[in-house]
């Protein structure tokens, strides 16, 4: 793990700008949060291909659909809660139903959003987007995975959702990294249990795994950035290898990555899956680290959950 820290939303903004230079068909839209989502970088360079629809998330989706009908590749961004929440029905019916080629990016996901409080901490977007047929869901681990995912999204047809975070987080990969839809990667090898997670919160999993090493417990840590489609092969491998899975996400334990893994395993290889995520509760104002601690998502809580379940194994 390097010491460098960068937010995944920065990866989005930088990639979008670069993509805009390479592909004249790419257009970008925002709903008055371009500075926060970082789509403003594209906007500054390509004002004629950038549309700020104002504070109007339903309009954001509709306009993007229209642009895609003319052959453009729209990237539409806002906060996760507003694009997925306020935009939901148009995302389902105007966009996904006919599988239009619109890419959505939701920043400020998870408790990690911090002081803005529960209204702004989106902890249900994976769940909401995942259940829409045709929609793909990606949460990058770091800056470079976000960067690469933007390019991948532009090459693939159909609606996709990119889940981004506001806070700076460790940079794991470099500019050579290539994200692949439906593929995960192993961040740490282990044999006693598996943590399969998504997003910057995996930093806590790695710290927990290091702490457990000192107690002779070996935990593998897997980055499942491609939430839908899920890397089923890897999930099955882990189930066979360690037989005890912990999902980890800065998202509700209902409906997210943990649910997806559980759904898959329950019908292919019934395996204990312990879902670590935001309990069925709303968040609140606080610093990201304080919230992770209070809601059981910090390294120490993860470590305790793993130890407890290993005893019962």
């Amino acid at each position, binding site marked *: 793990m390097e010491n460098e820290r960068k937010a995944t939303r920065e990866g989005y903004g930088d990639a979008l700008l670069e993509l805009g230079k390479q592909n004249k068909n790419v257009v970008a839209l925002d709903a008055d949060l371009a500075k926060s989502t970082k789509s403003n970088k594209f906007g500054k360079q390509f004002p004629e291909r950038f549309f700020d629809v104002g504070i109007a998330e339903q309009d954001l989706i509709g306009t993007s659909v229209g642009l895609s009908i003319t052959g453009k590749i729209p990237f539409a961004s806002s906060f996760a809660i507003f694009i997925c*929440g306020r935009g939901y029905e148009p995302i389902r019916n105007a966009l996904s139903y006919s599988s239009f080629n619109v890419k959505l990016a939701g920043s400020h996901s998870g408790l990690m959003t911090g002081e803005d409080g529960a209204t702004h901490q989106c902890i249900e977007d994976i769940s909401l987007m995942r259940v829409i047929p045709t929609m793909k869901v990606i949460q990058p681990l770091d800056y470079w995975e976000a960067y690469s995912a933007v390019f991948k999204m532009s090459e693939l047809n159909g609606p996709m959702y990119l889940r981004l975070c506001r806070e700076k987080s460790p940079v794991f990969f470099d500019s050579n990294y290539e994200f692949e839809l439906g593929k995960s990667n192993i961040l740490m090898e282990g044999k006693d249990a598996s943590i399969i997670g998504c997003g910057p919160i995996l930093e806590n999993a790695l710290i927990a795994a290091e702490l457990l090493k000192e107690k002779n417990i070996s935990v593998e840590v897997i980055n499942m950035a491609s939430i839908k489609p899920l890397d089923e092969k890897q999930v099955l491998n882990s189930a066979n290898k360690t037989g005890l899975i912990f999902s980890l996400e800065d998202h509700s334990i209902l409906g997210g990555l943990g649910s997806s893994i559980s759904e898959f395993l329950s019908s292919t290889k019934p395996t204990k899956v312990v879902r670590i995520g935001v309990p069925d509760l709303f968040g609140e104002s606080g610093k990201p680290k304080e919230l992770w601690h209070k809601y059981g998502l910090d390294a120490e809580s993860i470590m305790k959950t793993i130890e407890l379940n290993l005893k019962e194994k």
Partner: protein
Amino acid sequence: MLLKETELKKLANKVRIHVLKMVFSAQSGHIGGAFSSTEMLVSLYFHEMNFNPKKPDWSERDHFILSKGHACAAQYACMALAGYFSENELMTFRKLNSRLQGHPAAHDLPGIEASNGPLGFGLSIANGIALGKRLDKINSFTFVLMGDGELQEGMIWEAAMNSSQHKLNKLIAFVDWNNLQIDGKVSEIKEVSPISKKFEAFGWNALECNGHDFNELISAIQKAKQSKEKPTVIVCKTIKGKDVSFMENQCDWHGVAPNQEQFDKALNELIIKGESLGK
């Protein structure tokens, strides 16, 4: 006037100082839009609105909905000064376990009628309150404060039709017309003007005033209170970041906290302003 204009001005100055300290202490929050709404909030809390801080759920009270919930630091400051809770509690703003959430949470803090922050909800909620009170034959007023950028949300206009449909004459809406949103000028992103004419076309009375002038604000509110049939919107021309020279009319001061140097400078300007109002 119950309170003299200078008293109101002093209160507005106190509110701004509190807001500045709260956002500085939390190192996050929204100063610009809190400062542009300050006089509207002070007019309501200290002159025009009927409420009892000791009995926040008193059924005959006037209701107030801060639809542009991000400006809540100013509302919290007014509430503290009005006696809902101690001024000390203001410093818990945006911190873990605080009742003063980053965006107002009705279930956390008595006196906050509805949870807002996600823009566009407030007018519908205010309509609902006004309709409910009418059913209960309660004659009090319902106030709601919206941002000008917020008017870009479709839900506002769905609600605006409903207010006039139901002849909600006891509903009084404010628009904080500072011509700024986050990404730039409202007029350059998605123009909402002419605001008064739009509301009039939707069946409302519309009044315009200087949103930092207590005499204009209060006479507009008092006029709105006389309406017999229609809801009234008061479109208030304001300056985002009002009273701190380097924050005024700068959209970059929408949602960032000042650093120590900026804080000292801003505080100093506000203190000088306060002193100019006399003892």
